[in-house]
C-alpha cells in the first residue's frame, strides 16, 4: 500500500504533501514522494527527517524516488505504475485555457494518463 505525492517547492506542492500525509495515515500506507520541481529544489534534509520520524511513529515508511524520464508528468506516472501505488496526490492551481494549450499542463497529463485514482488538491481554497 503506497500513496504517491507529486511534490514541487510551491504552495501547490506543499498542499499536496500535507494532504498526502493525511491520506497515508488514513489508509495506513507508506508515502512515496516524487519531486517534479524544476532544477534541484528538493525537500530540505531536516524536513525529510522530521517527516520520516512522524511517519515511523505510525509505522509507515517514506521513500523519495526519481525517474530517468525528464518530463515530470511521465515520471510520476511511471513510478506510480512501477510501484503499483494506490493513489497519486497532486496539487493544482488555476490555469487559463490558452495557457494550458500553449504551455501544456503537467497536472492535466497526470490526471489523464494515470492508471490509479488521483487526488487533486487546490491550494487557493475559498
Amino acid at each position: 500500500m503506497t500513496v504517491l505525492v507529486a511534490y514541487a517547492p510551491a504552495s501547490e506542492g506543499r498542499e499536496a504533501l500535507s494532504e498526502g500525509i493525511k491520506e497515508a495515515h488514513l489508509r495506513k500506507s507508506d508515502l512515496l514522494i516524487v519531486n517534479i520541481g524544476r532544477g534541484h529544489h528538493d525537500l530540505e534534509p531536516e524536513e525529510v527527517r522530521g517527516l520520516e520520524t512522524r511517519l515511523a511513529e505510525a509505522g509507515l515508511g517514506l521513500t523519495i524516488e526519481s525517474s530517468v524520464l525528464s518530463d515530470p508528468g511521465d515520471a510520476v506516472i511511471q513510478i506510480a505504475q512501477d510501484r503499483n501505488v494506490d493513489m497519486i496526490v497532486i496539487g493544482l492551481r488555476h490555469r487559463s485555457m490558452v495557457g494550458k494549450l500553449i504551455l501544456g499542463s503537467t497536472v492535466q497529463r497526470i490526471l489523464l494518463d494515470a492508471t490509479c485514482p488521483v487526488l487533486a488538491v487546490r491550494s487557493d481554497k475559498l
Partner: protein
Amino acid sequence: MLDSAMAALASLADPSLLIMLLIGTVAGLVMGLIPGLGGTGAVAILLPITFGMEPPQALALLIGALAVVHTSDTVSAVLLGAPGSASASVTMLDGYSMAKKGEAARALTLAFLSSMAGGIIGAIGLTLAIPLARPLVLSFASPELFMLTVLGVALAAVLSRGNIIKGVSAGLLGLVLGMVGTSPTTAEERFTFGSLFLGDGLSLVAVALGIFGLAEIASRASQRRGQKETISLGGGWGRGIREWLSHWTQVIRGALIGIWAGVLPGVGATAGTWLAYGQAVATAKDKRKFGKGDPRGIVGPESANNSVEAGDLIPTLLFGIPGGVPSAMLLGMLLTYGIQPGPSIITEHLDLMYLIVWSFAIASILGALFCFLSVKQLAKLTKVPFAVLAAGLVAVMLLGSFQEGGQLGDLWIMIILGVFGWLLKSTGFPRAPFLIGFVLAIPLERYYFLTDSLYEGFDWMLRPGVLVFLAILVLPIIWAFIKFIRARRKTNFDDGHRDEQPEDDEAPLKNSNWSLVAAGIFTAAFAAALISSTSFSPEARLVPQLVSIGGLVFSGILLFTEIRTRLRARTEGAGWTLDAGFAFKTFAWMTGFLALTAVFGYLIAVTIFIPAFLLVVARARLKVAVIYTGVLYLVLLALPSLLPIDLPQGWFNTLV
C-alpha cells in the same frame, strides 16, 4: 518533376558517383563511432576532399556520410553505455539496459532498422517538400530572401539550447566573423588588418573544425582508457525485427518529429531525439519499462535522429537557411560551386536536389546493411581510447583545413577558434548559431543591399512574405519571454516539460570566472568590430555596425549578469579545473604540431607529433605508437597522388 527524379536516379548508376556514395557511407559510419564528431565532424573532415570534385560527386560523398552518422553512433551507446554523439544518449537509456540483460542484438536491430527507416522517411519528406515549397520559393524576391537569412540566424540563436542571450551573442559574433574579408558591395577589405590571406575571408572548414572539431578533441582527450568491459551481442535479432515491425507507428512518428526538428534552425539531432523519446513515453499507456529496455524508447529516437539530417536539408536547399551545423557547411560548399540555394536551385539545379534525395535514401539502406554485417568489428572499434584517436584526428583536421586556401594562417586561426570553441562549449554557449551566422553573413549583406537598391525606403517591409517572416521572428521571442517570466515568478511548475531535455553537465564551467571571461571576449570583440568599422566607406560600414551594436547590447547584458552573479556568489566558481588544464595542454600540443609543420613541413611534423602525443598524452604502448605512426605516414605519403590534396610545406622545405 518525376523525370528529373528518375534522371537523378539513373545518374547514380554512374560508377564514380556510386563509389563516392559508398566511400561517404563507410566514412560516415566510422565517424559516427568516434565520440564528439557526429555529422558536423563528418562533413568538415570530408569537405576538403571534395574541393577538386564535380558537384554531383562531392554531394554523393557528403550526403552519404551525413545520412549514416546517426546509424552507427548507436553501437557504443548500446554496447558500452557511452554514446558516440549527444543524440545517441537517448538510445542509451533503453538500449544499454537491454544490452545489460544480454539482449544487445535486439537493441541494435531495433536501432539500425529504425535509423534506416528514419533516413528513408526523411528523404521522402525532402522530396515532398520540393513541389510543396516550389511556388512559395519562386515567389521570393530579395526582401524575402533577406528576411530568411535574418530568420535563419535569429531562430538558430533563439531555439538553441540554453540562454537566448548567449545564443544571440554567438550568432552575431558569427556574423561579424563572416564579414572578415572583401565586402560584397564595395569590394573593400574589412577586418583584415592589412593581412593578405584574410582578404578572402576565413575558411569555412577551418572555422567549423576549430569551433567544433578541435574543441571536442580538447575536452575529451583526457579519456586515456578505453572501455574495458564490453557486453556481448547476445541474441534477439529475430525478436528485434518483429518488434520493429510491430512498432511501425512509432517509427513514422519519430521520423516526422525528426523532420520537424530538422526544419527548425538550431534545433538539431539532440533536441529532436529527446522530443521523439518524450512522444514515445507520452503515447505509451504502460510507461513502466521506459529507461529499463523498452523497444519504443529505441525505435522513435533512432528514427528521429536520422530524419533530422534530412529535415535540415529542407530549409538549407529550398530557402538557403541552414537547419543545422552540417547543412550550414553543405550550404557553404554549394556556394563555392556557385550553386545558390533557394529559387535558383529549384529552377536550374533540380537534378542535384533529387541526387541528394536519392543519395540520402540509398545511403540510409547501405548504412544499416553495413552495420548489420560489421557490428562485431564496429564494437571493437569503440574500445579504442579517445586519446589514441585524437592524435590522428588532429593531424587529419589540420590537413583538412589547409586544403581550402593552402595557407598556414588558416591553421593558426583554426587553433585559436578551437580554444574559443572549447570556451563556448564549457561555459554553455550554443555553437550552432555561431557557425550559421558565419555562413549567412555575406548572403545577408548582399540581399540587404539588393533590397535597399530595388525598393524605396521601407516599402519592402510591407511585402506580405516579409510580414509573415517578421511574425515568425517575433513569436519565439515572445514565447521565450513568457517562459522566462513564469520561471522568475515560479509559476511554471505545472507547465509542460516535454520539449526540454534533462539538464546535462555539458557546460561544467558555467557561472564561473570562465564564463565571465567569455562574456568579456564577446564584448571586446564587438567593441573592436564597431571601432574598426568606422574607417570603412558608408556602404561597407552599415551592416557590420548594425551587427556589432546589436552584439554590444547583448554581450553587455551578458557581462552585466555575469559580473553580478560573480559578486553575489560567496564561493569561488570552478577555477582552473583539471579538465581545463588538460584542454589547454592539448591545445599546446596542437600549437606545437603546427609550429613543427611551419618549420619542417607536414610529413616530418606528423612523424614527431604522433608518437610523442601517443606516448606522453595517450600513454599508449611503444608498439602501438610505432605502427600507428608508420601507417599514418604511408597513407599521408600516398594521399596526394590519390586525391587532390596538398601537404603543407614548411620553412625548411623552401630552403631545399
